[in-house]
């Protein structure tokens, strides 16, 4: 086994380790100083002393490192712990991450009653972080109070996601987690027993339970929980939002974190506006909510909100995401091959930067029909056509509001 550094030692000739900040089943964390910048950071490495086997610990550690790297590559998110450095010294893998000066969310209620407005803010921020992850093909799956730190930023209570070892991505995550808890939705808890896929709605459930925890100080395993039934005195919209988010049936919840974020922002539990996609030359029709992702069914990794069948597998796991802002819809591409929108005056190619770079590397033409760099997102209006991969590919939908 690799020798692990301890308080007082300097890792990789750069990070001087201070106090141990915590140890979990898979990783040990130290507060540390980056001697090059003078900044306080946190250094994590695999917890070989945990009850898990070395192989499992290393696998989880690797998963977390890879996911944090994906998050950074996508620009990072203010409510997700940022990755500063990653490396290996004498066979010991380590991560250097932002040091979050705060306390775990489950300690929040020991301190004082959390005001309702703070609960709402934490909910909005967690939804934002989850929506960001979902847009990047990551489903967190194990959101619970121990995985969230609360800190103060700009005078606001701000939650920061700190653990990523059970999340899954399209690149494949670690096996199923079997530890049950009240924060896990039935489709995750019973993953081995039912076929219900896990998706953005799974994280919506966990956020709902976390909000109940902040309001009440405890959470039951029961689904569909209205805080008022447990003696919480709160505004109806918040109670209704928690109740809807925690339903057993994923179809009855907010479909994704973006939808729930909007509800919390607006203080109105009614689900946001929806549109629909009608398959051309086919009979499928899908409802579209803001924040929904559309991608290929049965792809490895997390399910998109809208999963379409694509035998030839040109459609990405998350091909596009639908946004709704200022009473208007937009489509944001996140695919490798691009998406086309027909607005009446011809097909407009929409392609994300990563897809464009990939096509360039392969010597293919990444431009649109006018020879311009295609936009990454595009406005959608009632009646527009949306074609995945290419208008001739056969996966074309009419967008209806």
């Amino acid at each position, binding site marked *: 086994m690799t020798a692990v550094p301890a308080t007082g030692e300097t890792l990789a000739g750069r990070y001087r380790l201070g106090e141990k900040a915590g140890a979990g*089943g898979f990783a040990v964390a130290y507060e540390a100083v980056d001697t090059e910048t003078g900044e306080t950071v946190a250094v994590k490495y695999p917890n070989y002393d945990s009850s*898990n086997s070395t192989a499992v610990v290393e696998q989880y550690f690797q998963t977390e490192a890879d996911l944090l790297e994906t998050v950074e590559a996508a620009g990072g998110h203010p409510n997700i712990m940022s990755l500063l450095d990653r490396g290996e010294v004498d066979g010991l893998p380590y991560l250097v991450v932002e040091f979050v000066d705060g306390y775990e969310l489950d300690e929040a209620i020991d301190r004082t009653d959390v005001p309702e407005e703070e609960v709402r803010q934490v909910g909005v921020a967690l939804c934002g972080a989850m929506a960001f992850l979902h847009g990047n093909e990551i489903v967190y799956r194990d959101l619970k109070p121990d995985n969230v730190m609360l800190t103060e930023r700009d005078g606001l209570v701000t939650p920061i996601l700190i653990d990523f070892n059970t999340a899954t991505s399209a690149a494949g995550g670690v096996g199923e987690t079997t530890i049950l808890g009240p924060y896990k939705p039935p489709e995750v808890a019973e993953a081995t027993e039912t076929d219900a896929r896990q998706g953005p709605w799974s994280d919506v459930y966990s956020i709902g339970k976390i909000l109940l925890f902040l309001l009440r100080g405890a959470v039951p*395993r029961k689904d569909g929980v209205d805080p008022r039934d*447990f003696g919480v005195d709160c505004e109806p919209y918040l109670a209704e939002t928690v109740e809807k988010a925690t339903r057993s049936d994923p179809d009855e919840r907010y479909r994704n974190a973006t939808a729930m974020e909007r509800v919390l922002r607006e203080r109105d539990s009614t689900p946001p506006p929806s549109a629909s996609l009608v398959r051309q030359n086919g009979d499928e029709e899908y409802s579209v909510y803001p924040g929904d992702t559309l991608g290929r069914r049965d792809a490895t990794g997390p399910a998109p909100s809208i999963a379409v069948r694509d035998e030839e597998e040109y459609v990405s796991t998350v091909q596009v995401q639908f946004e709704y802002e200022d009473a208007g819809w937009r489509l944001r591409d996140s695919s490798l091959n691009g998406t086309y929108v027909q607005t009446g005056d011809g097909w407009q190619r929409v392609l994300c930067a990563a897809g464009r770079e990939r096509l360039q590397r392969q010597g293919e033409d990444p431009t649109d029909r006018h020879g311009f760099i295609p936009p990454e997102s595009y406005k959608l209006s009632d009646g527009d056509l949306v074609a995945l991969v290419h208008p001739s590919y056969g996966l074309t939908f009419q967008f209806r509001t």
Partner: protein
Amino acid sequence: MASIETEVNRPAVPPEGARITAEVDVEPGEQASGVERHIALCIDTSGSMSGAKISRARDGASWVFGLLDPTDYVSVVAFDSTAEVLLGPVRWGDLGRDEAMGMVEELSAGGGTDMYAGLETASESLASLDHDPGASGDAVRRLLLLSDGKDKDHTVGEFEELARDIDGSGVRIEAAGIGEDYNQDTIRTLGTTARGKWTHLEEAGDIEAFFGEAVESASQVVAADAELELDAANGVEVSDIYRALPQAQDVEPEWEANTATVKLPDLTERERQRVVMKVAAPAHDPAEGVPLVQVRLRARGDEATDRITVDYTEESEELAEANEEVQLDHQETVVRTELGKGNVEAAETQVEQMTRIHGETEVVEDVARETQVVKEGGKAERSRATELVDEERIE
């Protein structure tokens, strides 16, 4: 569908016979449909409960109300020098939360501790629901007892008898003692006899979780009133039977001829049960797969069977085969059961024996440590010692 699996510590025994250890694991299977819960809260409101305890007991009732479904039934009984039904039994859907809370607000502390009357009254309140335990679509019935004091007018034996009656009416008792002044023998006897769990609560803040866990696990019941029938073959003796999981507890089997019936706690989703025992295999000519005990699980009309068998042989290689785990499970259960009763000496004797046989393995070290903890500790340590960890349920 529940299933069972038997294991022995020695798959082969010599022709002159031997005493072996066996265990039966019961996998509850999955719940087919939701259950109707009949919950009686039986709360000590004697003078010593005043302050945080009674206030958190009210919060606990509030929490329980949040967990109930409209089809469930609930009653609340308070006892001090006398027992009183504060609420119900009533179908939750027929009662408003505000109305229920109004009645619970009447919980106030004062007077003595007639726990016996409290239990009788709570049991009668559930009985008044006129439920037929044998009927299909059985309800899951729970009496949740919370007390911090001693009932000086009744013996442990009297409570045991009462618990047996209550268990016989299809009601399981989940018993919790809080603080340092209650009689743990009584609490333990009530939980063990009426096939629930018994536990110690350290502080008022734990009351809500105790009530909540009991009510939520009741919704996961696959089959109430399950039992194991151990039908021993001629000349075979079964003894030293204990429940290992979900909690280390004594078992008093009902014997009929050479058949023992071991009543099990309600089978609950994801909660494996284990019964451990000693089996004396009589002399027998060399033969393979000789059945010693026919094991049958009966659970709500379903049945599952397995057999405890051994090979009789003179081959020393086969005789040397041993499944140490099974023996360790039995010994650990004995230690933990004794520790639950505060019988440190009996536990120490068993630990010494384990050390002699198995050396200082992880399990032996665990129980040795646990024994020391109980020796130096109090009620909390005794209660905690009975909780075996189901390794396979941990990631």
